[in-house]
């Protein structure tokens, strides 16, 4: 036991130190020396305001009651932070772009700066957070009583009669004073509080150290004293349930994980630290893993402490106080004081931030709009609003704590800490559809969000809050027993006859389900106003807009003087001057008043919104800024302009790439055409030359015949023979040119049949034997034992073979000339090889060997036997047969030509033949 005075003194000292820390941090921030305060570490630690005295005391209590289930509270946020890129990053980016001040502001701004939505969100938050604040009051009060009382192990949860003797009352009063001193000293330029954030971060260190300190004591110091081994030994049946997850708790496990994941963004204070107070989006890169690590560390010793408490302390001891009573029982009073300070820090940080966040919401979204609408403060008068706003906030803080105290006073005795907290979690989870849907679903409407929020809240209040109040002794037991209107199906804990569910899961199911359904279906069946459309595009497409591009704004006009006066009243003279002068300088105008273009009006509105919330700011600016009535078309045009511009530039980029590609193709095609044109000219000149040669000789001999009278018969006969021979050659040449032309244009009738190609080759050899003998060339054909059936025109195929053979024979200048033929069947193709030992084909001719532009042909054309178009014709023929003809190799020792043809499908060689061949 410790003297109450000592504890009060220590607590006062701690809080005084905290205040000093916040004060110094604020001063440093004002001078711009924000170095450490704006570090990702401090950002992460400030997020740990999530771990309240619910964590500090309640987690151990929860573990003692329900085992490992306590961990869900920390796993849920871990999910969100491991997936930070998907949700948190977008929330932070939008909030910074729009200078939003709270979750109510965020949701309302998304749905067309609706003041109804911000008011509803604020009201829900107040009601939902009241139990949570009560939880902190209860934790501090009971921990104080436990540590200061003679019998620390008594349950000590029921508040004493009368305010003045109630510890909880004094805790609430002290906290209200502390928060007012702390959080409402001035109205910020934006709603960021560097001093508060620094203090919160410090408190996060304190509570972690305190809990780890107690944990280390338990694990290291007490493990010998009859404890079930924390790291060794048996788990007695008394504590066995801590080790496992009861089967029935599956749904609770999922539900609480979901709730805590929702809470890490939906709790007003979490939204405040994670989104509004975020100084740099890049801090998320650190917080993404450091915050889960903090959560892991703080839950690491929960089960060991619970085990120690259950083993060492009497049966009646309050498990929610094990963190405190275990070191007390072990005789470590200093550690108990540290634990008390840890619990105090956890509670104060939560109360400070929650009440600051809520007071901002109350003043921005409930009181200021009310005053504006009732014209109690005229937007045109000259009084300074910021003092009014500060006053409203202080009153709000007192009211919030009073509400929390009221809940504590009337109900808190009945429930464990964790179950009180979970009531709040289900309450704030109602924001989730509107919040997350709002940044991903463009179509979501204000009416959808509003109906979802209201329905979800009502169902939550009915199914969870009412039973908790009834359990706390409120005289509404009849409602819980019989349901509203005495309708049994409407019983709060068994709505529509859903019996046997855990009350938490039951309430979550109905409230969240109703909320989500209303949100989705009302959104689908209602339409967005112009401003909603604009805002929804700004939120959903926040990453699609480059920061440099102009933001779409409504076309409005206002007098710069009016704007200046309005801004001065809300932001104060200094800040107003800096905003206006900066803009004037950017516009290049002398003096302090910029041109009040729509962009600037939007800027001023956002600046005002940072002080009084988006909906109030919108209302005030709209009174002095006149614009044409906003039509859906205007907004569509605004959005489309920017979207169109982006799309247009992308389109341009795509087009130019395509154009470049096409230009390249055209260049290539042009080159090819030029080449073809040149080849055509070449061909024509050669053809005319070739025609000329026989024509000339025919003409000269014919002239001789005509003019020379004394021509003897023998000479005349010879001349006629030459004329005949030359004209035949001429005809053949023309025939072949025509033939090739007809083949190329597909005008020839082919006489296709299934034939034995080897036989055709034999025939061709027979034809060429005479020529070969004359030239002294040996023709050898590797004997054929099986036929090679192909589909071809036999005459045309023979023409190909004859052409190849005649070339091979005629141009063979070797001393011992030979032409060897063979064939093989492979992969369904017949491959004929014609091998000679001639001089080879000059390299410059190889590329054009099979074209009619071949340089080779006219040299060969001089030969009486061929026109030189033979190879070009042969290739055409083989193409028609589905085959090919190519030069396999050539060189001074000879050439190899290959003629391939597909084996006929109509006649496949029988297996016995193939076997025989093998």
């Amino acid at each position: 036991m410790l003297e109450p005075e000592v504890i009060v003194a220590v607590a006062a000292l701690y809080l005084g130190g905290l205040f000093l820390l916040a004060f110094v941090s604020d001063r440093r921030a004002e001078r711009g020396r924000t170095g450490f305060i704006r570090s990702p570490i401090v950002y992460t630690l400030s997020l740990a305001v999530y771990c309240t005295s619910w964590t500090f005391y309640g987690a151990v209590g929860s573990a003692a009651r329900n085992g490992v289930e306590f961990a869900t509270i920390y796993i849920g946020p871990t999910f969100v932070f491991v997936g930070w890129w998907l949700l948190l990053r977008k929330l932070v980016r939008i909030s910074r772009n729009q200078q939003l001040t709270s979750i109510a502001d965020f949701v309302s701004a998304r749905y067309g700066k609706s003041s109804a939505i911000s008011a509803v969100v604020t009201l829900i938050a107040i009601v939902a957070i009241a139990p949570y604040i009560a939880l902190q009051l209860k934790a501090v009060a009971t921990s104080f009583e436990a540590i200061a009382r003679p019998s620390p192990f008594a349950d000590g949860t029921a508040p004493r009669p009368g305010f003045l003797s109630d510890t909880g009352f004094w805790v609430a009063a002290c906290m209200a004073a502390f928060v007012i001193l702390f959080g409402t000293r001035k109205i910020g330029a934006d709603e960021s509080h560097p001093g508060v954030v620094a203090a919160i971060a410090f408190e996060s260190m304190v509570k972690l150290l305190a809990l780890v300190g107690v944990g280390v004591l338990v694990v290291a110091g007490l493990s010998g004293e009859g404890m079930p081994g924390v790291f060794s030994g048996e788990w007695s049946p008394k504590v066995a349930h801590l080790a496992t997850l009861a089967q029935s708790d599956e749904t609770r496990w999922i539900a609480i994980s979901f709730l805590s994941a929702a809470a890490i963004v939906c709790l007003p204070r979490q939204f405040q630290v994670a989104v509004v107070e975020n100084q740099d989006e890049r801090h998320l890169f650190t917080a993404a893993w450091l915050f889960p690590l903090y959560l892991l560390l703080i839950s690491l010793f929960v089960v060991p402490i619970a085990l120690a408490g259950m083993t060492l302390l009497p049966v009646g001891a309050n498990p929610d106080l094990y963190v405190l009573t275990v070191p007390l029982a072990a005789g470590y009073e200093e550690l108990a004081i540290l634990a008390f300070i840890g619990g105090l820090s956890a509670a104060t940080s939560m109360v400070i931030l929650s009440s600051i966040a809520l007071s901002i919401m109350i003043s921005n979204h409930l009181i200021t709009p009310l005053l504006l609408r009732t014209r109690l403060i005229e937007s045109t008068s000259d009084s300074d609003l910021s003092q009014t706003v500060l006053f409203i906030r202080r009153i709000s803080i007192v009211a919030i704590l009073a509400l929390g105290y009221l809940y504590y006073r009337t109900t808190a005795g009945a429930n464990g800490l964790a179950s009180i907290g979970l009531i709040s979690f289900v309450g704030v989870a109602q924001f989730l559809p509107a919040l997350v849907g709002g940044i991903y679903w463009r179509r979501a409407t204000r009416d959808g969000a509003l109906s979802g929020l209201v329905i979800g809240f009502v169902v939550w209040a009915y199914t969870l809050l009412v039973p908790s109040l009834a359990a706390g002794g409120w005289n509404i037991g009849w409602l819980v027993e019989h349901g509203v209107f005495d309708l049994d199906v409407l019983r709060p804990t068994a709505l529509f006859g859903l019996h046997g569910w855990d009350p938490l899961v039951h309430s979550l199911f109905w409230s969240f389900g109703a909320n989500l359904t209303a949100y989705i279906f009302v959104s689908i069946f209602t339409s967005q106003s112009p401003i909603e459309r604009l805002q929804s595009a700004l939120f959903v497409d926040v990453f699609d807009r480059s920061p440099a591009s102009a933001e779409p704004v409504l076309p409005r006009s206002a007098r710069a003087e009016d704007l200046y006066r309005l801004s001065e009243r809300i932001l104060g003279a200094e800040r107003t001057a800096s905003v206006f002068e900066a803009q004037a300088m950017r516009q290049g105008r002398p003096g302090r008043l910029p041109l009040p273009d729509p962009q600037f009006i939007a800027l001023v509105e956002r600046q005002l919104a940072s002080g009084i919330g988006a909906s109030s700011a919108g209302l005030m600016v709209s009174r002095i800024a006149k614009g044409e009535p906003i039509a859906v078309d205007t907004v569509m045009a605004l959005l489309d302009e920017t979207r169109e511009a982006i799309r247009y530039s992308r389109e341009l980029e795509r087009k130019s790439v395509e154009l470049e590609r096409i230009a390249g193709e055209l260049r290539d095609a042009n080159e090819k055409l030029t080449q073809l044109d040149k080849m055509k000219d070449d061909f024509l000149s050669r053809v005319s030359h070739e025609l000329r040669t026989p024509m000339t000789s025919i003409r000269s001999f014919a002239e001789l015949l005509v003019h020379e009278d004394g021509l003897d018969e023998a000479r005349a006969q010879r001349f006629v023979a030459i004329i005949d021979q030359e004209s035949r050659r001429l005809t053949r040449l023309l025939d072949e040119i025509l033939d090739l032309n007809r083949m190329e244009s597909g005008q020839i009738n082919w006489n296709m049949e299934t034939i034995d190609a080897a036989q055709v080759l034999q025939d061709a050899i027979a034809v060429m034997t005479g020529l070969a003998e004359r030239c002294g060339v040996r023709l050898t054909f590797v004997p054929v034992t099986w036929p090679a059936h192909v589909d071809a025109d036999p005459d045309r195929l023979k023409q190909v073979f004859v052409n190849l053979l005649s070339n091979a024979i005629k141009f063979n200048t070797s001393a011992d000339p030979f032409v060897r033929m063979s064939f093989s069947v492979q992969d369904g193709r017949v491959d004929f090889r014609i091998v000679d030992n001639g001089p080879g084909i000059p390299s410059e001719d190889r590329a054009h060997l099979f074209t009619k532009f071949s340089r080779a042909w006219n040299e060969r054309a001089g030969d009486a036997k061929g026109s030189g178009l033979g190879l070009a014709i042969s290739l055409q023929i083989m193409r028609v047969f589905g085959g090919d003809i190519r030069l396999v190799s050539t060189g001074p020792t000879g050439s190899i030509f290959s003629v391939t043809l597909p084996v006929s499908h109509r006649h496949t060689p029988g297996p016995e033949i193939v076997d025989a061949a093998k």
Partner: protein
Amino acid sequence: MRSDGVSDLKWALPAALVILLMPPVLLLFDRPMLIGGIPLLHAYLFLVWLVFIGATAWLARRLFRDEESAKAPPWDGN
């Protein structure tokens, strides 16, 4: 690992964590067993938790680097 693969971890990592720490996968480890005095369920829970914190830290570093290099102008910027 390729950059776009890393990029997909942004959603794959949290999805995997949710699957691992929710029933029915979690229930596979809900057995009356002690590992070095620690119940299997606790050991599993904290191990998975720790591993994913490490993975997130690694991913965040990668993404941070990618983002910074994407932001850096293509020229030296004098």
